[in-house]
């Protein structure tokens, strides 16, 4: 617990307008984008620059106060929840786009910039930052790096870590360290930036980010294919890749969220089918046309309906329907338990079949969606945390789906991070020696364990 005197000191350190303590504000910073956990902090600080972050961390470190970093609070794994109380350090007021450099094809931003605002600025310059978490309208650049986020485009373009050139990070004791640089090639020492990319706020607070950019693709084309069976759709994906085409995105949703496609696709198809694939190719106009046609023909063999979007407006409507999936499904149940497993592409069909079988066995509603092109799935079990028995079955089902993914050579989290949500799987999912190394790294960088305590690998035994 932070006492009144300490709050007063924090106010002196970063200005009273940047320290929140009201009961209303504590509720406001108690949650993430899920309903599985909530915990109130003792106070919230909103520094306006790296020096402010540094001063707060120095103070917290000296006083052994837990600090949970938070950007947009859109994560779905409990990462931004101050499970041990203490301070929530919010980066949203550190939000300048410092530079977009067309010659160097890079940009330097502060952590609180909203991804969508960054994308809008890049579009004006004809540039492109490919990682596209579907939460772009709310998530921050700091959160994107700290979660090593990905999205549909990662099939072709890779995830955030492939774009991080340089970071400025504030360490637990308040030291500000610069890592990496401005150039795409850099072989100076260990890749320390990569330690912080995906560290979920447990090793340091990212205060500045330099990212590699690409020129925006000249043309894009979207193909939509509707299938009666999930497994058949999975085979279509394999065929596309086998044909030597690498689309920017191959996504899918199942019939739980077909409502979002009403008016875009015939009702008859939607009423009788199980799964929609959305495929986007990008590149030069000529290539894009040819590839879209090729995908059309491949899908045609097994799909109930295939369409190539006539224009950008039509394509945008399909993609908007896809992006609404998560909140659509969330609004259909009191509680959802979702998953973020990733499996090798040649195991997709087997994974889906076994997942569906598990849901039948546990007798819980299961919706499948995700980045099928790269094998990253978001199976969602719809449940109600107030119904203890159902909620328990939902968890058992999700646990089993994770086991299935692991047994197929997959991983427990493709992009959402471990946070609180997947802690219990860490021992199964990671080499014990690797966990040991992580703990040692933590001890070096944050010896008092003030940064985002209770997350990723820390289990109760470690937390004494």
């Amino acid at each position, binding site marked *: 617990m932070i006492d009144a005197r300490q709050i007063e000191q924090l106010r002196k350190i970063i200005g009273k307008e940047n320290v*929140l303590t009201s009961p209303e*504000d504590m509720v*406001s*910073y108690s949650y993430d984008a899920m309903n599985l956990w909530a915990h109130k902090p003792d106070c919230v600080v909103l520094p306006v620059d790296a020096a402010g972050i540094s001063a707060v961390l120095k103070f917290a470190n000296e006083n052994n106060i837990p600090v949970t970093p938070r950007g*947009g609070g859109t994560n779905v794994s409990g990462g931004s929840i101050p499970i041990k109380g203490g301070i929530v350090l919010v980066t949203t007021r550190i939000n300048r786009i410092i530079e977009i450099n067309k010659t160097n094809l890079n940009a330097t931003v502060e952590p609180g910039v909203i991804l*969508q605002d960054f994308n809008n600025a890049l579009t004006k310059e004809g540039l492109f930052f490919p990682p596209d978490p579907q*939460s772009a309208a709310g998530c921050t650049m700091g959160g994107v790096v700290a979660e090593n986020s990905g999205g549909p485009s990662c099939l072709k373009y890779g995830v955030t870590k492939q774009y991080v050139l340089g970071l400025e990070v504030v360490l637990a004791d308040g030291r500000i360290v610069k890592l990496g640089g401005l150039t795409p090639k850099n072989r100076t020492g260990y890749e320390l930036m990569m330690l912080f990319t995906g560290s979920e706020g447990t090793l340091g607070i990212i205060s500045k980010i330099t990212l590699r950019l690409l020129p925006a693709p000249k043309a894009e084309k979207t193909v939509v294919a509707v299938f009666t069976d999930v497994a058949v759709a999975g085979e279509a994906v394999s065929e596309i890749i086998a044909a030597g085409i690498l689309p920017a995105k191959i996504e899918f949703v199942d019939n739980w969220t077909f409502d979002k496609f009403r008016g875009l696709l015939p009702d008859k198809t939607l009423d009788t089918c199980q799964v929609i694939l959305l495929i986007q190719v990008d590149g030069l106009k000529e290539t894009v046309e040819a590839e879209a046609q090729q995908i059309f023909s491949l899908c045609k063999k097994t799909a109930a309906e295939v369409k190539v979007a006539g224009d950008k407006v039509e394509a945008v409507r399909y993609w908007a329907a896809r992006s609404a999936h998560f909140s659509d499904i969330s*609004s259909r149940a009191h509680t959802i338990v979702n998953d973020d497993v990733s499996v090798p592409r040649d195991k997709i069909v087997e994974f889906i079949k076994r997942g569906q079988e598990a849901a039948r066995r546990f007798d819980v509603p299961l919706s499948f969606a995700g980045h099928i092109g790269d094998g990253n799935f978001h199976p969602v079990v719809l449940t109600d945390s107030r119904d203890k028995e159902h909620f328990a079955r939902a968890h058992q089902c999700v646990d089993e789906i994770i086991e299935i993914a692991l047994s197929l050579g997959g991983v427990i989290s493709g992009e959402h991070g471990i946070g609180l949500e997947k802690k219990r799987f860490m021992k199964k999912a990671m080499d014990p020696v690797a966990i040991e190394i992580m703990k040692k790294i933590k001890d070096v960088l944050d010896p008092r364990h003030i940064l985002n305590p209770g997350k990723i690998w820390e289990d109760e035994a470690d937390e004494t």
Partner: protein
Amino acid sequence: MKPDLSFEQIERFKADLEKCTKCGFCMSACPVYREEKIESSVARGKIMLVRAWLSGELTPTDEMAKALNKCTLCMACAQSCPAGTQVPSVVTAARADKAGQKGLSFPYNLVYRWLLPRRRLFGYSVRFASWFQGIFLPRTEGSIRHLSYFLSALGQGRHIPEIAPKFLRQSVPEINPPPDGVPVKFTVGYFTGCMTDFVFPELGQKIIRFLNRNGIKVVMPRGQGCCGAPVFLGAGDFKTGRKMADANVRAFKNLDYIITDCATCASAMKDYVKFLADTDERKQAYTEYAARIKDVTEFLVDIAKLPDSAYRVAPEFKGKTVTWHEPCHLGRYLGVKEQPGKILKALSDIKFVEMADADQCCGMAGTFSIYFYDLSKQIADRKVANIQATGADIVTTDCPGCQIQLIDSLTRHGLPVQVRHIMELLE
């Protein structure tokens, strides 16, 4: 506290309260969040506060009231919400329940319950208050308790036009037929919001003249009053709101159309049924009333279907570069998006340039800008930058509330851009 009674209004919008999944898509849409960057200013945060209030975790403190009031009701969040959550409805309902539980504070109780519903008296007190501009009124946020009168509060520290020496209702008759020789094609009722009546009466006169010349007979019922927006939407006083709504419904009985020049008034009146209909009779009356309300540009383009040649620019604006600011209440609430552009494009003697983010809130939002003038100015500064980037001589809009905000903001920045209601451009 009797929980069963005190959440009467929120209960009606429970579906919206529950729809929000906290995904945070509203963060890049909300004009208030863009400035403050704290969770309680964004739609998701407000939903969570109201949920905590309902569950008993929080009580309706001043801090809660502040969070609820810190919303321009611009509807941008609802537009970007994948779950379709109507956050403005929840905020409005929560304001009402807050007012129900805690009561309105002085002097709002006086102004809202007593003065605004009495149009003539209100007019005089506005004039009276205007003498005192500079004495009672808040210069910055936080001093709202000293607020004297709603309208004159807008004047404080702001560069706004003076209260007109002669109100519209004092300068035009109740019935305004087309000139001799012009056959009557339509008869419409004209709802003049407080701003047009007290601040911009020449706008009202111009609209009447334009409509008359195009064969539209204009009736300006004397029984009409304030639309009620500041009372039921701003302060959550639904009881007084109903009185005002009923008076307006009575005043416009028997008229096929109710034309407005203020998108805020129009959408507030269309919302009577959503917020104020507590009986079946009211529900029916308000529904029927809402169907007849048309924004003036919507009426001209969609109903009167005037030919392009009917729109000629007044001589003083010939050759000017003009841009357009879309009021939230016009575009997102009334769904009137294309019509003003059609009129502007029909004006051959001006150069029309579209501005970036034309549909983003200007930060006026009535009561909001009195509570939070500093914040309101920050929101407006972005609008000013977009206006400036167009190089326009004139920015037009369709809401006298926005007009006041734009005049104030452009003057603060020392920019020589004129602010005009779109109807003022017409000859």
